[in-house]
């Protein structure tokens, strides 16, 4: 099965990459974009989708600083 895992900086954690993107958008004429957060997408084929939460907890995300969302 093809799976996607979205990894985001946890709410409340300063995301300087997101801030930089947020500042760059108006410079290109795009006004009104706020709360930009930059995360990561991991795509993978898995034999057992039941393994995905443990994969996320142990490796794909660091639960201390990141939230993850498994998108089937």
């Amino acid at each position, binding site marked *: 099965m093809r799976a996607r895992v979205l990894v985001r900086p946890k709410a409340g*954690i*300063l995301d300087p990459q997101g801030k930089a993107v947020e500042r760059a958008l108006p410079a290109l004429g795009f006004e009104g974009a706020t709360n930009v957060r930059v995360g990561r997408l991991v795509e993978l084929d898995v034999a057992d989708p039941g393994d995905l939460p443990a994969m996320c907890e142990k490796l794909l995300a660091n639960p*201390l600083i990141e939230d993850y969302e498994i998108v089937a």
Partner: protein
Amino acid sequence: MKTGIVRFPGSCDEVDALEAASRVGEAVLLWHADRDLQGVDAVVVPGGFSYGDYLRPGAIARFSPVMEAVAAFAAEGGLVLGICNGFQVLCEAGLLPGALLPNTGLRFVCRQVECVVVNERTPFTRGCGAAERLSVPIKHTTGRYHAPEVVLEGMEAHGQIVLRYAPGRNPNGSERDIAGVCSEQGNVLGLMPHPEHAVDVLRGSDDGLRLFASMREHVDAARAVA
């Protein structure tokens, strides 16, 4: 004292660490794929870009065979010093609390910094004075120390915050100006500054040698008791 310096694919400061540790005793390199720590008294997890820093710095390195042995060594009270990428590896491995995030300024920062010794009673700082300042270089992009508030409070109470950047000189946005932290038992230390690059006044400072000399003192003292 015999010190083992871990070498991962992508390490780049292991030779300086080897040289620094050699100034206070014997030092050997430990290959990441080996579980044998060769009977060392202390382990240094050095700086660099272990496994390309893929995913997150330290995320892959923590699963290497040598790190299993290092975790067991730390659990028995062995001295483990993680520098820069090594600090990131130890946090990912759960041997130290917290995590390292990208610098607030998003830039790679490379310069000499002043650190204050906050806890001089650890095996790594016992040769330092209280509130003594050490001049040591930093060079990193992902050095912003973070831990949840409740964890930070516990660390303060247990003396786990060992080094802070001098007031007003926080180079990366670290919480509470934290530059280095230790485990609750005190035998594992991680820091972003590079003591191994500051072991000779010809290179600007020899303050970093104090950490290696402290480790030597600790190992000698433990041996004298045994």
